């Protein structure tokens, strides 16, 4: 119990003194996971929309794949991204293994199926022939897609939160493709793992609390937008 108390104390100490290393780690976590979420939104919404609005043979199987992907194990993603990015791997010429860029790639792969799955179910929840109706009123396809996105804004904001929450709390892929390099690719989760293995449990707890606070802040902002829309 002392240790937990000590950790909480440490967390607030690190936060209020603006400890440069912890601030750097926190900012990098937000950075990497934020970019990964944005990328996954573009890809995920596109795929989700396409699958939701089209009918083709094997569609059910594709939907099952997407739903399975929502639970994609981060370590497996990390392993494959590592193998691809090795110097002598297929994408080795990029020389981006053990960089924040590699972490963004891995996290985007983890978040994309989550966003895709939620988009898919959100669009399917709209009245079945809404898109035909919009088209018949003279909208172009692009306008139609935009209206559908606006109509399903609430669940799509949930997709943002789920995707972001999934990647910022993820450790397996980040440590494999990022390498937990001090001041460069060390994020809150990988730092927590390292401090735990160093036996610095109080600092590990402090980092965990900072991670939770960060998630809370981001979600408060997003929820505010989401629920504000709703009340209008």
């Amino acid at each position: 119990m002392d240790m937990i108390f000590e950790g909480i104390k440490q967390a607030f100490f690190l936060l209020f003194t603006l400890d440069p290393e912890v601030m750097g780690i926190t900012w990098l976590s937000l950075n990497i996971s934020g970019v990964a979420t944005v990328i996954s939104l573009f890809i995920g919404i596109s795929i989700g929309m396409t699958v939701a609005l089209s009918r083709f043979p094997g569609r059910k199987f594709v939907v099952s794949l997407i739903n399975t992907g929502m639970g994609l194990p981060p370590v497996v993603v990390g392993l494959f991204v590592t193998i691809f990015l090795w110097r002598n791997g297929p994408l080795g010429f990029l020389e981006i293994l053990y960089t924040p860029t590699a972490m963004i790639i891995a996290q985007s792969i983890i978040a994309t199926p989550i966003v895709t799955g939620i988009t898919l179910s959100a669009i399917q929840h709209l009245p079945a022939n809404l898109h035909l109706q919009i088209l018949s009123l003279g909208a172009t396809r692009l306008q139609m897609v935009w209206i559908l996105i606006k109509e399903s804004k609430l669940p799509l904001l949930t997709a943002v939160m789920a995707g972001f929450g999934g990647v910022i709390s993820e450790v397996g892929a980040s440590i494999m493709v990022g390498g937990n390099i001090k001041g460069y690719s060390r994020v809150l989760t990988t730092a927590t793992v390292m401090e735990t293995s160093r036996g610095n449990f109080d600092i590990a707890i402090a980092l965990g609390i900072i991670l939770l606070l960060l998630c809370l802040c981001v979600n408060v902002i997003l929820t505010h937008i989401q629920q504000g829309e709703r009340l209008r």
Partner: protein
Amino acid sequence: MKRFNNVGWIAVIICVFAIVFDVLSATAAQPQKKNIILATTTSTQDSGLLDVLIPFFEKKTGYFVKTIAVGSGQAMVMGQKGEADVLLIHSPDAEEKFMAEGSGINRRLVMHNDFIIVGPVEDPAGIKGMKSSIESFKKIAASGALYMSRGDNSGTHAKEKSILKAARILPQGARWYQQTGLGMGQTLSISSEKKAYTLTDRGTYLALQKNLGLSILVEKDAMLLNIYHVIEVNPARWNKVNTAGAKAFSNFIVSKQAQKIIKNFGIAKYGSPLFFPDAGKKEK
């Protein structure tokens, strides 16, 4: 409400652009040949030694070191594949094989400390104060007291296997012998929780001691010497290896300055040094 939401959206969009720009510029500002990938054991990172040595090296030379802390076994595999530039490891037998197959060049002695056998204070197997690590392993096996192995092909695991071999113990499947598959720090924590014995390097044990319910039971056996070498990955095999960077790092770590840092590391915090510098000495 509507007004706030527009402001909120704009704030989110600005943040996103700031973030994207920040990451892109950070990545672009990193020249590639300045990077050195150092594959090393968990003990050098968990003890905190590299946190002192590497900033010093980076400041002096302008290189950027990417430290990947894994077991010695995995570090050597990275070297074999040309995925690392320089290795700092402690698994002498496997290192000799690594050199013999031509994967590395310029293997040099860096430092040593020693392995110790730690266990619960109650010492159910009664090995405290024994002089021979082989005999104490026999005793642990005979008593059936729990033993935690790293089980990850690390240098520590390799040492344990050689002791078990010398003691003619086949631990696979035995109930007293369990594998964690984790780094030294975590294996020590687990051993402490489960009141088990384990083999550890002294450095990691001293660094974590305050959180552990384990005491040193067997030490100072010649077999328990723990020797660290630096090896440059053979650039003739892999043209992507940063040869100059690897050379700079390995020259640095055997230099007088670095050896002095190693000598003094940990004295202030733990009361005794964690590593003993050995550069330039002849191997026994």
